[in-house]
């Protein structure tokens, strides 16, 4: 069933789809990079399902960090950021990596410095909701988590952890059951 222009995205994030569709325009003459950037940016601002944008999915320290990428199918040029700290506009920073550098992926605090140099505002990404999620996780003995072959036993205890030294004592403590679902996904 062919029909162009078109927009498709994972999950029922219809406002993001609508935004990208609007940027492409009825005649389909809008920029596809602008469409993807603005569609995903809207999701970041709306914190789609808590899985996109600030204030969601805190790490073990309670910090929210963001990953994003944008890719041009004609040139295979890519801009991306990983573990971006303290900047809300992850895909727009990725767009700046694409447009203003010859690199592909910037990460962590250095990606934050890059973003600030490109004019983005540094902000705290923590919200009351992310603080509550983190607190609840700690009160539940830090369960679930992603550690294995460490001591104390990560399936019952919080860290700090140390690696298990003896091969005999090593055990794969990570459950084979997936921890990813409709509200916890990459």
């Amino acid at each position: 069933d062919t029909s162009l222009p078109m927009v498709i995205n994972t999950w029922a994030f219809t406002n993001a789809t609508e935004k990208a569709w609007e940027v492409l325009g009825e005649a389909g003459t809008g920029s596809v990079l602008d469409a993807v950037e603005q569609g995903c940016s809207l999701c970041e601002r709306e914190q789609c399902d808590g899985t996109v944008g600030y204030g969601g999915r805190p790490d073990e320290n309670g910090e929210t960090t963001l990953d994003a990428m944008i890719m041009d199918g004609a040139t295979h040029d890519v801009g991306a950021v990983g573990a971006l700290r303290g900047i809300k506009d992850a895909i727009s920073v990725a767009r700046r990596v694409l447009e203003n550098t010859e690199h592909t992926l910037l990460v962590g605090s250095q990606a934050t410095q890059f973003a600030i140099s490109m004019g983005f505002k540094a902000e705290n990404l923590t919200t009351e909701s992310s603080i509550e999620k983190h607190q609840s996780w700690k009160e539940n003995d830090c369960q679930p988590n992603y550690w294995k072959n460490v001591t104390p036993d990560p399936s019952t205890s919080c860290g700090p952890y140390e690696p298990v030294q003896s091969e005999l004592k090593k055990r794969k403590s990570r459950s084979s059951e997936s921890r990813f679902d409709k509200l916890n996904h990459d």
Partner: protein
Amino acid sequence: TIGMIAIDGIGRIAGGTSTNGAINKIPGRVGDSPIPGSGCYVDAKVGGAAATGDGDVMMRLLPALVAVNSMRAGMTPTFAAQQSLERILEYYPDFSGAVVAVAIDGRYGAACRGFSSFSYSVANDKLGGVKVIEIKC
């Protein structure tokens, strides 16, 4: 996570992803979303794909790239999406995730595993704008 692909009226294509990742991750962890070929991949000669689910697994098996290459070999978007998940399931049978795929002419499809169902959003003229499509996994 959102993974998005846009194609304009003359076949220009772009893709992107944005996420805050897995909850309670070890600080410093990065998932599949910023890795080309994993969370998303687009090729103007073929089409594009975007994946969602367990990023630690997906970044090892590049489902978006696999789906695009399957379309390059002649598969429909739906079969290409299924094929990319099959590749993951060979190594990670408990994997939960989904892939959406779109050919450069606008044909699209999706596949999912591990969820009861998976919803994705599409907009084109034939649909009259934005429509949510739900598939059983």
